[in-house]
């Protein structure tokens, strides 16, 4: 694995898992202890659950990308795909988490704007990763 962007994606994947998995454990603990300040904000619970789930799954996605990129993603676009993937994978769960901080009763906080931004990066990564007829052999 020589491409520094792919290496960065690999590192980001592990980091994301290192943050998201303890987040899940923390949410479980809040449930277990029936902490009302968490449990009674239905919106906050939903947003933080989404943050945990997206963080974990996108972390795994980054690891999978790092493992497969050099064989399956065109070399000319590999760096860009990795960059977009890392940015999207961080912004999306972060947006969900921040949306549940300082949120009102019916609406998430302003941090939620990171979610569509992250989604755009992920979509861009997907579009870039799609093999094209003109591509040389990825390897």
């Amino acid at each position, binding site marked *: 694995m020589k491409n520094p962007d792919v290496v960065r994606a690999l590192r980001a994947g*592990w980091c994301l898992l*290192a943050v998201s998995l303890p987040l899940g454990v923390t949410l479980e603990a809040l449930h277990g202890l*029936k902490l009302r*300040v968490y449990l*009674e904000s*239905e919106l*906050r619970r939903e947003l933080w659950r989404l943050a945990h789930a997206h963080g974990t799954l996108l972390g795994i996605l980054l690891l999978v990308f790092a493992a497969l990129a050099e064989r399956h993603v065109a070399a000319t676009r590999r760096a860009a795909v990795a960059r977009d993937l890392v940015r999207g994978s961080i912004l999306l769960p972060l947006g969900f988490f921040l949306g549940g901080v*300082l949120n009102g009763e019916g609406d998430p906080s302003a941090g939620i704007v990171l979610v569509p931004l992250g989604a755009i990066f992920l979509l861009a990564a997907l579009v870039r990763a799609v093999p094209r007829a003109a591509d040389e052999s990825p390897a």
Partner: protein
Amino acid sequence: MSRPAALALLVVAPLAVAAALRFGPDPVALADARPLLARAGEYVGSDACRACHPDQHASWERTFHRTMTQRAEPGAVRGAFDGVERSFFGAAATPFERDGRFWMRMPDGAGGTREAEVALSVGSRRYQQYFELAGAHVGDTYRRLPLLWHLEEQRWLHLNGVFLAPDSDDWSTHASTWNANCIFCHNTGPAPRLVEPRTTPAAAQRADSRVAELGIACEACHGPGRAHVERLSAPRARLAPPDELAIMNPAQLDQRESLAVCGQCHSQRLPAEPEALWTFLETGPTFRPGDALEAHVTPVTCETVSPDPRREELFAARFWRDGTARLTAYEYLGVTQSPCFAGGEMTCGSCHTMHGGDVHGMIEPEKRGDGACTQCHAGLDTRAHHGHEPSGAGGRCLACHMPRIVYGILDVHRSHRIESPDVRRDVEAGRPNACTHCHAGESAAWAAAGLARITGRASEAPRSRPDGGPLELPEVLVSLHAGDAVQRAVAARALGELPDARAAAFVVPHLVVALGDGYPSVRTLARRALVALERELGLGLASELAAFDPLAPLEVRGVAVRDLLTRTAAATRAAGLPPPPAGTLVGPDHALDLARVRALLELQSDHVIAIGE
């Protein structure tokens, strides 16, 4: 990445969560700080239940219990606050919206007009009433506004048009406050906190009312939840047996205690000790789920003595003379009078559910209709049992054993005193009889003979009616014209649901006469019945019936009724209905015998029946 950096990453999320919860908004404090709420005591509110019981919370959230009382916010207010003036009983009011808030412009009682802002709404199924904050601060007196929104008819009605009272131009007749009335049963954990109620006249009464939750929420049936929530925040406590959970499950209560959970509201009641009234008006009712209801209150029955010597009939008028309730909110009493309760295991939960089924009636699909009875009485759906076609309307258990003889909220509901028809008992008590309400052209004597034939037991014919009406005429028609307000309302409702549409040839003209009743609520029910028959039979009277307003001034209504009466005979003939049978006061030419109808109308009593609604 270094090992310390990796370890640091693992604590990022817990620290971020802790910081967010510590410094972010506290949903518990926010909810508890809402106006009118008081949760410093034993109540915690339904949000606290949702976290651990999401399914039960969701099934309750869709019910009309939840929306029984609401703040006047968009989404909760269902009326058309469209700025259109509505005239009723000699005056007018205009519901309108301004800056997202709801208002009513109406007479001020001194010759001018005033604007009242809607603060609370009560009701969300049949009709919605509105209350203004008349006092100086939130929790002070909430006064009922004169117009209500009828949800099914999608129109405004005046309060004078929905109770059992004759037409009146006095807009203050049904003036009422939320704090001393609705608060008790339409909210959870009510504390009226009236200020010096013993010495303050009702008109000058002030309050600082609080509830644990607006509407009827979890803790109304399960009891106050704070002890439960606090105890179960320790994970190990969740392993405790159910009786140590510090919460009540009505499904696990004894029969009478289970019934009491619903009976705390579905029964009109007085404090068990007269002095307790002041406690109720100050700190609220003392009953808690799991208690015996009679330890706190005494359900009102036909024998309850009126506290007002000038109104001796106050309570007695709410019952048929055999003690069966004829107004809603006496379901508890009805059930306790039923053999299914006294000799069986029936509770409210035998048929109703708070967490499933159709929210209309709160009945699970398999228990709707006959299913409610066949859980215990299987195999009775036979001609030998009921003498009717098993698949027809006469073969339905509820038609005979829970007839619609109870007035409330501008409709007629099923009696919860579950028992078998007895023609003599019913008619002599002034109580509508299940047989003659379907067999609209038949007399009580005919019904008694038929019942004897079906059951094989003696069934006596009645010897008199309380109103002195003739026994040889069709019982329901006599009740429609000669009965008191509840009898007339019940009869009008019944005639709109005829199992045999051919009876419409004589029913329609009688219902048109009822459109001229002196009680607006009876007129409304008569119009509904006619609209139902018109829809079924296509009599060609649809536009006239649609235009008829039961709350219009007498001169307008009078013209409309006379016009309808002149057209009815031709309409029923043109619809191909068979000639009415003899004795129905409608001739073979479909013309109504008005002279004999007038004689029946002369027997009509004109007393007002107070409804605790």
